[in-house]
């Protein structure tokens, strides 16, 4: 049975903001972890920054955005905001910290055991969200994509938990088969979420033409099938190196998106350069993937692919999203608190356009520094410094936005 949409039960302001703040602060240990990357693969010194970025920075931001998105796009009510704001949020931070500390302490079992328990609780909480999303009356492409993305997030967590069962609890499962499957599922979740979101955001907020109908209907399924083919190849024909072909839909997605961005009818929109940068990096990732066929698991290629997907593509989109969503949430809450017909400050008053453009330049600067780290992992410190610079900018801009909100709130007529 389908539920009725509940637009009047959207999450409170503090819920997504808490996740966004945590995402920013995880940049700090991420920067520190880049100072000790070695030139091996697989290597704990690479897994540590990857998980700090994927779970700490991107995981928090994407989860905060997802909780907001499912309320708006799919009309799923936020039934227990305190549970999500305090319980799930704390679990996510503790689980990420335990896992990363376990990696830092050379796979110390107690930390991995703790992480496995915490991630199992998180998987249960996310299953509840998936159930709500499944019952939503929304049947559009982006809602279907959100459901699939959440399924893949759960699969990623389950595969990660299986590896923790091996490393932390000593179960005799095939770790080396689980690792690439976990990686594929994680890549699948990131891409599916972005595909679902892009179908809505690009035409509505960047005023681009819509994605082609066939892509809207079948893009997510195509990507899912490609992932399944990739996983099948890894399991049954590991000697063949054709599984990277699973990434062809990704190249298609990058090209389609870049073409749409060229046709935007809002050339002055500051979010547009963020999307250009992100999808250019996705195109670069698609171009690098065929190298897997003859470079195998070369450490530089592993770092390059990981950076392009997480540090380049996903981080750029996430930072752009924060500059769009945070001022709007502040504006909306102020507007709802104001008496009717009272004029409240526009979005620009909370975060000026110049602030968003400064952070875009910081992200642009990250890319050559990341290339330096890919080439010479011992030269991670310039990238680490640039990430700290990004953190400083984010805090500066969003603290100013919070102050502006408080001042405007105090100025409201009682």
């Amino acid at each position: 049975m389908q539920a009725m949409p509940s637009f009047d039960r959207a999450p409170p302001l503090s819920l997504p903001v808490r996740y966004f703040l945590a995402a920013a602060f995880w940049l700090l240990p991420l920067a520190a972890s880049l100072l000790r990357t070695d030139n091996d693969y697989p290597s704990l010194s690479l897994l540590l920054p990857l998980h700090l970025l994927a779970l700490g920075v991107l995981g928090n931001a994407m989860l905060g955005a997802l909780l907001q998105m499912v309320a708006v796009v799919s009309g799923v009510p936020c039934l227990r905001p305190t549970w999500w704001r305090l319980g799930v949020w704390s679990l996510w931070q503790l689980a990420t910290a335990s896992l990363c500390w376990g990696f830092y302490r050379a796979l110390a079992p107690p930390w991995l055991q703790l992480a496995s328990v915490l991630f199992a609780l998180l998987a249960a909480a996310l299953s509840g969200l998936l159930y709500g999303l499944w019952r939503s009356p929304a049947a559009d492409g982006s809602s279907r994509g959100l459901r699939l993305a959440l399924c893949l997030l759960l699969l990623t967590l389950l595969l990660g938990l299986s590896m923790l069962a091996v490393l932390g609890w000593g179960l005799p499962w095939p770790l080396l088969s689980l690792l690439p499957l976990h990686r594929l599922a994680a890549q699948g979740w990131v891409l599916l979420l972005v595909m679902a979101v892009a179908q809505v955001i690009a035409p509505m907020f960047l005023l681009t033409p819509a994605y082609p109908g066939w892509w809207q209907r079948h893009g997510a399924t195509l990507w899912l099938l490609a992932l399944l083919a990739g996983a099948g190849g890894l399991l049954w024909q590991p000697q063949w190196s054709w599984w990277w072909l699973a990434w062809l839909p990704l190249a298609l997605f990058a090209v389609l998106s870049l073409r749409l961005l060229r046709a935007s009818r809002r050339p002055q929109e500051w979010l547009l350069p963020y999307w250009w940068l992100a999808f250019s990096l996705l195109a670069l990732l698609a171009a690098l993937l065929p190298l897997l066929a003859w470079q195998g698991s070369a450490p530089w290629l592993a770092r390059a692919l990981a950076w392009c997907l997480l540090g380049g593509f996903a981080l750029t989109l996430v930072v752009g999203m924060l500059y769009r969503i945070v001022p709007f949430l502040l504006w909306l809450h102020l507007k709802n608190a104001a008496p009717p017909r009272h004029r409240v400050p526009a979005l620009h008053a909370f975060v000026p356009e110049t602030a968003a453009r400064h952070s875009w330049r910081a992200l642009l600067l990250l890319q050559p520094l990341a290339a330096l780290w890919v080439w010479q992992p011992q030269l991670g410190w310039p990238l680490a410094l640039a990430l700290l610079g990004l953190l400083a900018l984010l805090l500066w801009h969003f603290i100013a936005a919070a102050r502006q909100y408080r001042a405007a709130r105090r100025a409201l007529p009682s």
Partner: protein
Amino acid sequence: MNLTTHLSAVHRHCDDSFAALEQAVRQQDWAGADALCASFCEEMAQHFADEENRLFQALEAATGMRGGPTAVMRYEHEQMRELMEDLNRDLLQRDARGVAATCDTLLVLMQQHNMKEENILYPMCDSRIPDAAALLQELRHVTP
């Protein structure tokens, strides 16, 4: 064509007018901006009226629900009406920065509102309103 496709096309038509208005302001074509703003606000007002007086009432009659999603949509219409008043005021004062700031705010509010309608409310109207085809004919007086 059903209610979802027709009303989504009306949204896209309003988006076109909005983009043209922003373009005129950016080029400091104030006379053009005045005309485009007037037609944009008129299209939006007509669309809101169609929804509030016909569509939402038909949905409420079909489902028996009062308040809930349609009340939220009406409330957001009111917020957009206020922003359109601000937009007209900024335009009258030839305040390009003010118009840009109000447009930016209006765009985000408008699009998150459209998402809710296009993804959930309109499909619900198509499936729940008994004579959706007749209602569609009534609403098609605005050709996107």
